[in-house]
Structure formats: C-alpha cells, structure tokens
C-alpha cells in the first residue's frame, strides 16, 4: 500500500494542507497504465480581500459546471491553497478545458478575484519547486 508522502516536510518552506480533497469514484487498484494521468496547475489569486480555499473551490466547480456540464468530468481537486497561491489538480485530457475555465472565475462569495496561472506540472513536488518557491 502506497504511503502518502508529506511534501511539506521535504519542501520545508511550504505547508501542504489536505483541504478540499474529494474522494474519487474511480475503480481502485488499477495498474499504472490504466490509471488516469493528472496534471497540477499552480495558480495565484489576485483579490481585494482574503479568499477561503473551500469557497474558491466551490466557485471553480460552479464555473466549470456551467461551462462544461455534468457529462464532462474534469477530475478537479484543490490540493493546496494558502490564501494567495495554490495547486489545482485535473486530468491530463481536460487540462486545456480547466485552464480555459479558470480564466472565467471572477468572484468568490461576493469578493472579486482574478486567477493567474503560474504553470503546470506532472507532480505536486515539481509544481512547488518550479512555480511556488519564493
């Protein structure tokens, strides 16, 4: 059984909070070749005031639902958010759709925001190293 690695311990400067994790309904125990390939999008939120991670994720989900509907599952999970910057996971196939949709998220709970995409990576560790360090 694979242990959950604590990226924050190795990264040192960056605390990874397991907020907003949604248990997936996909088949368990798939071999690597059949598993869904994921991508991690590092982003920054520009806002007037503080933004809560859960509410941000709700706003992202709402925008994606209105754009793509129920039939298209994008594999979204908010892996981390510290109030300013965060990491959003999605399936590799839906990366373009998610990046398209993120542009259209313009408010969270009445607070105006703009999401700036810092970059995309295949793992959380490399995402943190390349885009969120400093």
């Amino acid at each position, binding site marked *: 059984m694979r242990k959950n690695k604590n990226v924050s311990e190795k990264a040192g400067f960056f605390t990874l909070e397991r907020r907003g994790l949604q248990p997936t309904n996909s088949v368990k125990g798939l071999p690597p070749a059949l598993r869904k390939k994921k991508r991690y999008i590092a982003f920054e939120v*520009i806002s007037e005031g503080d933004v809560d991670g859960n509410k941000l994720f709700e706003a992202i989900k709402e925008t994606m639902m*209105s754009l793509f509907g129920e039939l298209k599952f994008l594999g979204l999970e908010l892996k981390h958010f510290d109030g300013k910057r965060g990491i959003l996971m999605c399936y590799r196939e839906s990366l*373009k759709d998610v990046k398209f949709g993120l542009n259209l998220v313009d408010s969270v709970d009445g607070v*105006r*925001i*703009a999401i*700036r*995409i810092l970059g995309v990576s295949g793992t959380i560790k490399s995402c943190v190293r390349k885009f969120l360090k400093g």
Partner: protein
Amino acid sequence: MKVDFVRFKPSLTYDYDNFVVFDENPKNGEFLKGYVVKARSSKELLQKLRRAKMDWFVGVVGDLNVLKYAVMRWRVDLILDFEGRVLDYSLIKMAREKDVAIEFSFARFLRCRGYERSKLFEEVVETLKVIKKFDTPFVLTSGAENDYELRPKRQILEFFEYLGADVERAESWIERLVRRYTDPNYIMDGLEIVGEDP
C-alpha cells in the same frame, strides 16, 4: 512585443511591455494613447475623427452602418469590441481590404453569464472562422475596465486559441499595429529605415 488594449490605467502589469489605454479623451501618461470614437451616425464619426491626433490609436464603436463607414476611413485603426457589437460578412471582408483590425476582448466574457455567454461564444467562434477565411486583421486583448478583468498575455491567447483563433497571426497583427505608432524606423510592411546614409 506584449501589448494589451485596455479601457483604464492599469496598476498591475503582469508580463506586458506596454498598454494602449483607450479613452474618449486620451490623456498624457506612461502608456500609449488610444482614442475611442463613439458615433451614432457617419456625420458624428467624421467630426470626432478630426480630433484624432497622429500618435493616437483610433478605435470605433457604433452600429453596423457606422462601422461600415468607419472601415472606409484611413484614420481608423480598429473596430473595438463592445456590448452589442454586430459584425457581418461584408464588413469583415471590407476590413481586410482597408486594413482595419477587429478587436476580440476577453472581458466581455466576464460580464455575462449563462445563455448570454453561450451566445457570445457562438458569435466569437463563427466570427473567427470568417476572419480566418479572409485573413482579416484581428487582435486578441483583455479589453479590461479594471484590474480584475486583466489577465496575463499567455492566458488570453490560450483562451482564444481554445475558441479557434490563430493566435500567432493575431500577434503579428497587433505587433504591426503597434509598430506603426511606436517604431520611428517603420514605414510600412517590408519597408523600414535600417541606418543613416553615410
């Protein structure tokens, strides 16, 4: 060169080299000046065009008849993107012949929701297909009226690429348009001053 066309003086600059700030009364400042001509008739358009100074980018806002008239004027650089803009097949073809660019702004998508946004998507996708057919000049901008509508260049280009725009072509058109006003050595496409006569 990364330039964006906006409707306000931005405080965030992201990865842009410069901004063209469009206003009905352009003021001096650190950014390039854009002159918005809002006209309800061709007569009003002509009157307002006379005010345009030589270093101003001129963008037109108006109904279909005004836009068709505006495209024929040499002083007009582009047709701005605004709420309720109507472009037809013949206008896009004329814009190609008269070298007038058509603006697509990202901010319009933020200002509507649901069915209206869906109609806007359809309109933009169809217009981009016609523009591609004639190779009409077009520019992809944020069209922001405040800092929250502003996005980095790469995000704007990826957004419109998803809708079927040829982003490389758009970048070449915007560069050409900006060079006309900012590069003193630029005369026209393929003709520029490279050095002084020894």
